[in-house]
């Protein structure tokens, strides 16, 4: 008689996961592990979001850290009746990025182009840097839509929850933002080609 194995399906694993709000409640009760789990789950996405929104890795690190510091505070204004913890965290991160940007231009350019290899042959570093610059020049609401929907790969519904606006608004902002980005990218590519010649 052969041994019986049980394979865990991803859906089951997801089903076993505790929600952010549950982890938050445990964390508020002093559960260190819950806080660690919440950090592991949300910190990378928050850092990525802050990086794309601010264009600075240092600022991204600072923002993601500060979000968790605010979450720890006893008088934090998160209320699970009003929205999800994820939305609250992105909201705090967005405000922090605004504060950082208001303090002055971000000096440190994100040098991501040299880091990726898979698309390295197709996309040169200049055009990626141009895209990043174009992204940073977008109005905040448009940039939010691109970062959440296209870079964080959130659905329109999730993005709408995070941004606190209707799904239709997210879609129209994204379409306009993409139009602006495409135009800027094209202009940058033309300039680059002229410079090469």
């Amino acid at each position, binding site marked *: 008689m052969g041994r019986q194995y049980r394979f865990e399906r991803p859906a089951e694993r997801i089903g076993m996961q505790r929600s952010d709000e549950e982890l938050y409640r445990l964390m508020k009760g002093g559960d260190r592990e819950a806080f660690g789990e919440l950090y592991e789950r949300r910190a990378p996405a928050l850092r990525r979001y802050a990086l794309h929104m601010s264009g600075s890795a240092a600022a991204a690190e600072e923002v993601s850290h500060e979000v968790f*510091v605010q979450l720890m505070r006893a008088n934090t204004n998160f209320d699970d009746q009003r929205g999800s913890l994820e939305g609250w965290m992105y909201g705090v991160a967005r405000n922090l990025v605004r504060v950082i940007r208001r303090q002055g231009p971000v000096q440190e350019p994100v040098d991501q182009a040299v880091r990726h290899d898979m698309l390295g042959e197709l996309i040169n570093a200049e055009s990626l840097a141009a895209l990043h610059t174009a992204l940073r020049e977008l109005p905040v609401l448009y940039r939010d839509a691109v970062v959440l929907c296209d870079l964080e790969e959130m659905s329109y519904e999730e993005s709408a929850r995070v941004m606190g606006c209707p799904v239709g608004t997210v879609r129209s902002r994204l379409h306009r933002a993409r139009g602006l980005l495409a135009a800027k990218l094209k202009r940058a590519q033309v300039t680059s080609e002229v410079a090469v010649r």
Partner: protein
Amino acid sequence: MNCESARLELVECARRGGEMPAGLSGHVASCDGCRSRWQAERDLSTHLDALRMGGLPAGHDWGKAVLMREFDQRRRHLRQVRWMWTLSTAALLMLSVLVARDIRGRHNGPEPAAVAQSFTPREYPEETFAPAEEAGEKGFIKLPFALPPVPGETFGIVRTELDPGQLVRMGVRMDPGWNGTVEADVLVGQDGLAEAVRLSNDDGAAGETPQGY
């Protein structure tokens, strides 16, 4: 299909990275503007994919460590605050119980007159307090329970108001129906204890003043 609806669809199509539906591809093939937009959208999607896959600069390990340390500190602080609150609440509760008991004891305690009534008078010999007499303070009656004065001891006189209960406890015989206060001089020894008492006669209700001995 017009250009406006085609552009809405082709943005979504470029984002998904799939093939265009037949209707849309037919329109794109026949419309230069939409074809150019389709190219731009595909190009943008490729660039955004590259940006996303470019990854993230690795987070500093100390970032989490710092947060966890801060979390521990806050938790400790919170625990201390909770303990302080618990202890203060317990102390407050105990205090209020004591105060309540004290107040109830006062309210439920026998009235001075009742004390006088319930007290069984004993006969004590009336005796003047010699040291006071010698000092020219007349009318002091030695309290029956007081210890004899020590040679060389000094005394103080305290004027106060005494109620029937206090007078009975000092060994003064009381009219059970009397329920007032009387002014008295209490002679106090160096040990702080009363040695003798002199009832004042200027009370006005001479007939009701208790009789001392």
